[in-house]
């Protein structure tokens, strides 16, 4: 299901309490996708050279060193950026390959992305989850897109997001509900009493106030709203570029929505659509 995650798991399994080097490879791919009759340009970090709409999540243990090889299949230069961890010397030229070594000495969710307009604003951004390998875990990568801006960004005609814009397409892992419920990395499927980790990054440019039906979650880490750490919430804002780690311990079975409560975002392609997923909790 997640090839690179399985590899990582194997690498660390025999060195459970020791820091180790985790090797992984991601490809930067680009394509256009029809999202609810909107043609959107996407740039993604994928496990293979074949474009996939969802960025591949990365996972390491605490204090592990990630040796990440980036193969840029795009015709433009990209970066592999993790704020405060790798911000310089991180470019990958077109059709080139670069390897970066980075260490993580704190648990939580980190966002990696390509720090160029035609990268990050076209969705080249994903999750790194550190220190939660032993938990049932899922990845949510929030993003929104505006058709005309997507086109301009892809063609080099725009390099910034205007102060105010009205995107049409709202996604989790670049998927629109109900496709989010067949997403192997995002559709939360677990049992009552499980300790479930949800790794969230907001790769978009909008504040996403996210609401859980049925349950409260505990915010374990937050890159921007650090004052939220330890809070139990059912609704909370996730800022652009923010990375959060959430703990969900369901106390009852059920099928419950979790969605952006800026309700303009839940009707992509008709209601219900857009930035919605479900929590599927079995007894």
């Amino acid at each position, binding site marked *: 299901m997640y090839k690179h995650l399985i590899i990582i798991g194997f690498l660390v399994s025999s060195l459970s309490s020791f820091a180790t080097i985790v090797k992984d490879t991601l490809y930067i791919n680009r394509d256009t996708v029809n999202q609810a009759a909107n043609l959107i340009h996407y740039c993604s970090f994928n496990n293979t050279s074949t474009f996939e709409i969802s960025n591949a999540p990365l996972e390491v243990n605490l204090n592990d060193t990630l040796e990440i090889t980036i193969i840029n299949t795009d015709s433009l230069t990209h970066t592999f950026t993790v704020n405060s961890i790798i911000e310089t010397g991180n470019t990958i030229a077109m059709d080139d390959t670069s390897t970066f070594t980075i260490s993580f000495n704190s648990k939580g969710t980190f966002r990696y992305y390509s720090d160029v307009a035609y990268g990050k604003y076209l969705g080249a951004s994903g999750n790194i989850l550190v220190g939660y390998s032993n938990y049932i875990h899922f990845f949510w990568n929030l993003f929104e897109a505006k058709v005309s801006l997507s086109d301009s960004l892809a063609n080099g005609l725009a390099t910034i*997001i*205007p*102060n*105010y*814009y*009205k*995107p*049409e397409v*709202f996604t989790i892992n670049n998927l629109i509900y109900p496709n989010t419920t067949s997403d192997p990395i995002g559709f939360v499927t677990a049992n009552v009493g499980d300790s479930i980790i949800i790794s969230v990054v907001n790769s978009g*440019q*909008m*504040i*996403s*106030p996210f*609401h859980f*039906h*049925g*349950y*409260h979650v505990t915010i374990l880490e937050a890159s921007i709203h650090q*004052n939220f750490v*330890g*809070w*139990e*919430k*059912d*609704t*909370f*804002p996730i800022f*652009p570029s923010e990375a959060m780690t959430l703990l969900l311990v369901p*106390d*009852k*079975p*059920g*099928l*419950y*929505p979790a969605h952006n*409560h*800026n*309700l*303009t*975002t*839940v*009707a*992509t392609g008709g*209601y*219900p659509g857009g930035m919605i997923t*479900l929590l599927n909790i079995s007894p």
Partner: protein
Amino acid sequence: MKHLIILLFTPLFFTAQDDEITLVSKMDGSFFTENGTNTPFWGFGEYFPGVVNQRVYLPAPLLVFNYGDSVHVNLINQSPETHTIHLHGLDVSQINDGVPATSFGVLFNDSASYKFRANNIGTFLYHCHVNTNLHAAMGMSGMLVVRNYPDTNLLYNGGPSFNKEYYYLSSDMYLYWNYNTTSPGPFHMYEADYFMVNGKSGTQLFDDTTETIYMNAGDTALIHIGNVGYNAVSYIFPVAANATAHLSDGRILPSPISADTLTIYPGERYSVLLTPTQFIEGYVTVNSTNLYNDTTIVGTNYIGINVTMYPSGVEDNKLEELHLYPNPANNIVNIRSTKDSDINIYSIEGKFVKTTRINKGANSIDISDFTEGMYLVISDGFLPAKFIVFK
């Protein structure tokens, strides 16, 4: 006419262990915006058996339950579209979640009951979850509070005490949708252009003394704040009010936080305590900002706050509230009282209209011969109360 929505936020209190409230959903509500424009909305109201024309309110009635209560919220749908009640933040079972795809919808002329146990103290919301992006924007939302019980003067067992309580629900509307209910959208183009607290905006809010925070030195006021709009709202309290947030989303915070400026995003709620130590005659500023790549303030409202230097316990602290509903009323106005009392009703011009005796609990007053307008209810031991007659 712009005062027609005054007192619509009168809370409905329940004290029994088994509480039941029946709401009606309709799509024929109307309210007056600050500039006097009669504006359609969809909403919920308390259902009164035998009343032909049930009324809905903006916002929906405030529901207050006690911790531990077993609650039934019934819904009678008298509108042509399906509706539900989503009990936002109450972590109810799937069947009671109010989401048509995973629970059920309530069809035209049908009814249903939502059940939950009030297991957490704090501030919650309820709203329709059918085409939520439209129905919530049209006004189908309200606040729900679970208070500590039996120590209702404590925020929670072992927590701080308070002796005043206020409720503020922020919302916004894109009035174009309200005026074009048959063809709203596209939904991603929602552009809030009318910003409210308790369904009131601008002078409607600031001039309404029932919305003003009144305190004496030494008082502690519990302020319930929720946001059911599409924009973020920032409540800016006077620094002298010493605002601290103790709960959010119905959970006790690990430690209280300063809430001089408290930004609340769509769907969030906070329980805030005010413990002023000095005179305040001013206002709480409520700024709205959108969630896009912009921090421009797009709307501002003001809630009055008056803190005297009188010590807590002076005469006006002993005054209790009369709860009037429905409001506006037509032929009957119900008055919920905490004790037996004589009441006098005056027109807003000061003309005596009627006197009658009310008992502790619910009382129905015949106002069928009243003409349209605003009336004052005066009774010893109670704060003055207002109601509207709307024929």
